[in-house]
């Protein structure tokens, strides 16, 4: 085993925990510094999900991806800041304070994997691991000007990822360039017998920049109402440049987009309301009081331990599942979800990838979005890929007001390779 020292100048507050002396072994990632989002279990290292309710929690086991990283020789140097339990688009909802955007400290890095993105963008680490439930890797990648991939659902084991919304989320790689991302990705994929949703589709690909004949679908909905026209313009130029490399762009539509955001929020809050019920202070986290009877004691514990956004989403999810609401919300959301999948399946009969902006706008100013619904609306372009389970990535494609813009590429199931190639082609040719 070898060691390295890690003492980053973390002026953007990317980390919750850093490891000053890191040991690492041999392997394809030997000595590569990797930051891991703080919702991924690391044996012996505090894992908090940026929540007070998990303060002091030290997992007795490693998440599957962490085991794979260690086996590949990676140096895991710290745990990154995030929106509490992944619930946010800015990394402002952290019990440990917000992470700042390395490119403009007045702005957010995006979220919820904001700490991972900032650590990479600020050059503190070679690459990072994030998780993406409704855009949580792609949004901060776009806002910080790096590359981030949400893999096809099932391609990376979720064992050890502290669940926010199980049916939507995936762990994924983040890096400053496509090659590094690809190397990191090839280490973390593969089947895990402890995750029933894990699929045996390892990734072992070297990016190629030849995209001649590639057909790109460009959905109207990704350039419509709510999308900053300057952002739309930059992304259209990026698509033009892909065409100049031999690809063909064709317009398409995703009519189910009208239901996507609601379907997403109903599903994720429902699952979250159940996933987060276990945080009661009995088995882990700060001790629950035992003077009151259990419901009252738990309510006190959870009111004190969860931030407002988390409690708001738990309440929304509880509404969605409650008797009298289930049929109207949760069940209908599953219908809408199937419609989104059907739309993608139809579009992918004619095109190889779908392209559009990752986010409707550039990184927000800190504190700019205070209304929860307005915040939710900014996820509109990233949630469809999670609802369908298809792979999606964000690659930097230009700037507006000196802030980076992300080009989002969405692929067919298990064709992560193709969107990685497309991003690589753009990176090589467009840069």
């Amino acid at each position: 085993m070898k060691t390295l020292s890690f003492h980053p100048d973390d002026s953007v507050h990317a980390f919750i925990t850093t490891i000053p002396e890191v040991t690492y072994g041999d392997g394809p990632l030997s000595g590569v510094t990797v930051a891991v989002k703080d919702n991924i279990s690391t044996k012996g290292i505090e894992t908090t999900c940026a929540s007070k309710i998990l303060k002091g929690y030290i997992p007795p086991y490693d998440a599957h991806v962490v085991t794979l990283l260690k086996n590949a020789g990676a140096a895991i140097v710290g745990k990154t800041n995030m929106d509490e339990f992944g619930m946010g688009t800015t990394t402002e909802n952290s019990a440990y304070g917000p992470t700042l955007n390395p490119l403009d400290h007045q702005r957010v890095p995006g979220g919820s994997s904001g700490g991972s993105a900032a650590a990479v963008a600020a050059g503190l680490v070679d690459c990072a691991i994030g998780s993406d439930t409704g855009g949580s890797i792609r949004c901060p990648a776009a806002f910080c000007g790096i590359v981030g991939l949400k893999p096809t659902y099932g391609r990376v084991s979720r064992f050890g990822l502290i669940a926010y919304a199980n049916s939507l989320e995936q762990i994924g790689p983040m890096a400053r360039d496509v090659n590094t991302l690809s190397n990191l990705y090839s280490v973390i994929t593969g089947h895990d017998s402890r995750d029933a949703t894990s699929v045996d589709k390892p990734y072992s690909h070297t990016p190629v920049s030849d995209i001649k004949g590639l057909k790109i679908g460009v959905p109207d909905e990704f350039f419509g109402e709510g999308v900053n026209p300057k952002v739309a313009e930059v992304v259209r130029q990026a698509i033009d440049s892909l065409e100049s490399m031999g690809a063909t762009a064709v317009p398409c539509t995703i009519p189910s987009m009208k239901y996507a955001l609601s379907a997403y929020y109903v599903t994720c809050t429902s699952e979250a309301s159940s996933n987060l019920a276990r945080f009661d202070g009995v088995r882990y986290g700060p001790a629950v009081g035992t003077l009151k009877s259990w419901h009252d004691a738990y309510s006190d514990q959870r009111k004190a331990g969860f931030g407002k956004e988390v409690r708001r989403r738990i309440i929304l999810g509880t509404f969605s599942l409650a008797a009298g609401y289930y049929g109207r919300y949760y069940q209908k959301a599953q219908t809408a979800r199937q419609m989104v999948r059907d739309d993608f399946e139809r579009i992918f009969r004619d095109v190889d990838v779908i392209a559009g902006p990752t986010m409707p706008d550039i990184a927000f100013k800190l504190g700019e979005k205070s209304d929860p619904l307005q915040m939710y609306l900014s996820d509109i372009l990233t949630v469809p890929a999670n609802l369908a389970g298809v792979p999606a990535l964000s690659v930097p494609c230009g700037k507006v007001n000196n802030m980076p813009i992300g080009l989002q590429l969405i692929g067919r199931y298990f064709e992560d390779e193709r969107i990685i190639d497309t991003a690589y082609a753009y990176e090589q040719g467009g840069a």
Partner: protein
Amino acid sequence: MEDLETIIGLEIHCQLNTKSKMFCSCSTDFRDNEPNTHTCPVCLGLPGSMPMVNKRAIEFALKVGKALNCTIRDESEFSRKNYFYPDLNKAYQITQYDKPLAEWGKLLIDGDNGEKEVRITRIHLEEDPGRSVHMGTTDRGKYTLVDYNRAGIPLIEIVTEPDLRSPKEARKFLNKLRATLEYLNVFDSEKEGSLRVDANISLKGSERVEVKNISSYKGVEKALTFEVTRQRNLLRRGQTVTRETRHFVEARGVTTSSRSKEEENDYRYFPEPDLLPLRVASWVDAIELPELPDARRERFISQYGVSPEHAKTLTGGLKLAEFYEAVASEDPALAATWTADYLLGELNYRDFSIDAMPADLFRELLTLIKSDTITDKSAVEILRLILDAVKDGKKPERPQEIVSRLGLAKTSGDQVTALIQEVIAEQQAAVNDYYAGKMQALNFLVGQVMKKCRGRADPGHLNTLLKEILDKKV
């Protein structure tokens, strides 16, 4: 009012005897262990852990489904039942809700009015919660201690239609169900808490009451009998039965109203997102069921010539049936009588299961009875000595050794004749009384002979022989 029909339906939770838990690889063999020594991230509900379904639990549940003539759903799935309770590791229980594994079955029982079919509504799989120990006395001093060793033990829940008409019938149903599960080798009825029952009970035309928390077979009949009386008394007094959940307090044999707000719970079921659906209906064809209680009973009658009553008793539990077959070889009728009429009584008296009686010792005892070496009375005495030794944790003596040590061998015919002659010579007065027609004198003389041989003569045989000798002398 007395004849208002009683309507009972049961929900039976039964632990499956798999090696590992329902959703993780922890051992299910936790009963003699320290608290929280059979746990892992999954069954502790640690953040980030994920469930993985135990295939054998599915196979066991399918076996039960087939034995109870159920239809296996083409697609079934697991759901989360959300509620807070300290012993519930994840604050939800993974169970099955609107898509259970098996539906619409039946079980034939020996009902109050003859043979009867009880319909099975559904069978589903779920995980057991942990175990709570309630501590403290003053209100503010009370707290709960939790052990998660039991958390995640696989359970099947079997739900019946409201087809049972009396507490006794409910008990008979349970006995039959237990025997069936034992025969399938999916369940160990002797493990504490391995079978728990909730019962719905109403009197025709009145509201239904759910009695929860009945954890013994005997408790079911007791709890239901208490409820029938309670509900009848309410109606007799002109009051009505309230629809409610009541708890059975085993120690006092009563049910009490549970006023907790638990009843208002909205469990917010939804499909477990970490697990995929089951499509196992086709597996059923490959499952070969073992001989079940009814078939075994018929076989006992035809193969061993056992009486229907004995056959029913002897097939009422798997181990008992196996025990009988292990001892039946030499004289099946004798073995049936001694097992069903004598041994079971002695076992029940000591609260023992059939395991307490070593089959080879019992077989030896039967040989001694059959060869006329000992009297029935001595045989019972030997039986008791063996069981008492087991009770004291000692190695029991072999029947032959007991016979030798206590001199229990039956006195031979010649010896008895000699003793009779002795007694006739000694008890002339009694002999004369006999000739004078006083029948009590005969009993006295029998007693005297018995005394001389220390009870080792067969009483019936002695009686006949004595009479014969006396009558010849006239």
